[in-house]
């Protein structure tokens, strides 16, 4: 699936929820599913410090594709993080670098990407794109 197909799939999944609480229950559920990163990568080097919660991000490069794993100490952030990983992971650096993440807005979670720096999500996406750009320039 392309990045946008995954985004559309996510938007679809959220369409069935009629109120905020249901949405967040689903996000929390995604956050609870399995650890997203192996413990060895939960170290300061991989830490993205938001104002409130912490996010760890690790990138692997394999067969021309970037594989992301991530985690957070806050479960809602973790749920959000898992969505972003689902969307961006396993794509080529140029796909990732060029991706426009519209799903967050469409699902109604724009505030989590806002300037308030209340969580590490925005910094995480930035970091993922940086990795991609770096790998992209290696590719050439």
């Amino acid at each position, binding site marked *: 699936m392309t990045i946008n197909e995954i985004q559309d799939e996510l938007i679809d999944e959220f369409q069935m929820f009629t109120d*905020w*609480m249901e949405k*967040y*229950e689903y996000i*929390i559920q995604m956050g609870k599913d399995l650890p997203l990163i192996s413990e060895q990568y939960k170290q300061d080097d991989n830490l993205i410090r938001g*104002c*409130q*919660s*912490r996010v760890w991000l690790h990138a692997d490069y394999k067969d021309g594709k970037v594989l992301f794993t991530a985690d957070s*100490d*806050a*479960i*809602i*952030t973790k749920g959000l993080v898992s969505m972003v990983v689902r969307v961006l992971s396993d794509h080529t650096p140029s796909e990732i670098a060029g991706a426009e993440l519209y799903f967050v807005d469409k699902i109604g979670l724009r505030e989590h990407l806002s300037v308030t720096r*209340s*969580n590490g999500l925005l910094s995480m996406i930035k970091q993922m794109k940086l990795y991609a750009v770096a790998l992209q320039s290696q590719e050439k």
Partner: protein
Amino acid sequence: MSATSTISPAVLDVEKIRKDFPILSTMVHGKPLVYLDNAATSQKPLSVIKAIEHYYTHENSNIHRGVHFLSQRATEAYEVSRKKVAKFINAPHDYECLFVKGTTDGINLVAYSYGKQFVKEGDTIIISAMEHHSNIVPWQILCEDRKANLKVIPINEKGELKMDEYKKMLAEDKNVKLVSVCWISNSLGTINPVKEIIALAHEKGIPVMLDAAQAVQHIVVDVQDLDVDFLTFSGHKLYGPTGSGILYGKEKWLNAMPPYQGGGDMIKHVTFEKTTYNELPFKFEAGTPNIEAGICISAGIDYLNGLGIEVVAQYEHELLEYVTAKLLEIPGLRIIGTADQKTSVVSFFVDGTHPSDIGILLDKMGIAVRTGHHCTQPLMEIFGIPGTVRASLAFCNTKQEMDQLVEGVKRAVSMLL
């Protein structure tokens, strides 16, 4: 006071009071707003909003230097406001009350100007373990510049200052030049024994600065009774406009200190060779002041005085006791800050959850709380937690809102665990 006691409705007519605050009828995500972030900033009564509007439609003009009508009118309003502020904190002289941007500005002013004059290499500044970053970082900068030492009064597990340690510091260190502590902690709600803190320092001739950012809106302030040397607070937490604040300083210190900022109004005479500074309070008020804020900070004070601060304090205290007892019924919930003397702030942590998760879910229920470290990172490290959920109360909150908070937390926790 037990959790089931009713709050006497005779004390304050809260339903009537709420009508004075237009923003309280906001709908948030389809729910009526429950505003429990009063310690971050207070909401403004209509009288303050009207005072601002009145200033811009009837008085606006630059002050102190104009001979014309509007300038005289604005100057008069500004200086009358200063007098009201002085009366509010019982300052001996109105010129000891400087208009500043807020608490942070007030502390920075003292750190810079007092520090420049009085703090040398090897000297010591004492703060406490429960300080807001605004009462930490300015002293760190000063101490780094001057090669001075910053010492920290520790706290016990209830979130109270260890006064014995403080006494030891004063006894053992001959070079303490200033003690600067908060009157009330913004993340714990602890009311510190400031009168005793001041008396002990004064025995050694050491001046004391109080960060009263969380005090002025909750308890009676009398700088003469305290005999405090410096005291500062923010207007925006006192029902007044953002960008307003007061630094009270004893005349003898303010006179001995060099000015902070340079510019218009703070000078008597300027030549390129030599500049002489103006008298108090102008020496410390460089540039066009925030005239709106200066005038309207006392509209907030008027509003509070109209209710009566003792009545407000009592009501807020009853609310706090009520909500605290209710919250404690939630399994795994720990109150952070359980000092014997407390007011209006309840901070908590629920095992197995992250404060920001609870905050996000409460927000979706219309309940505004603050989550995180509340600009007191060192304090969070002492308690070994990433932060807390903090509900901070004011007289415009109701018992019903306390119930909503408790129900909201219960629901959030059940979703998260």
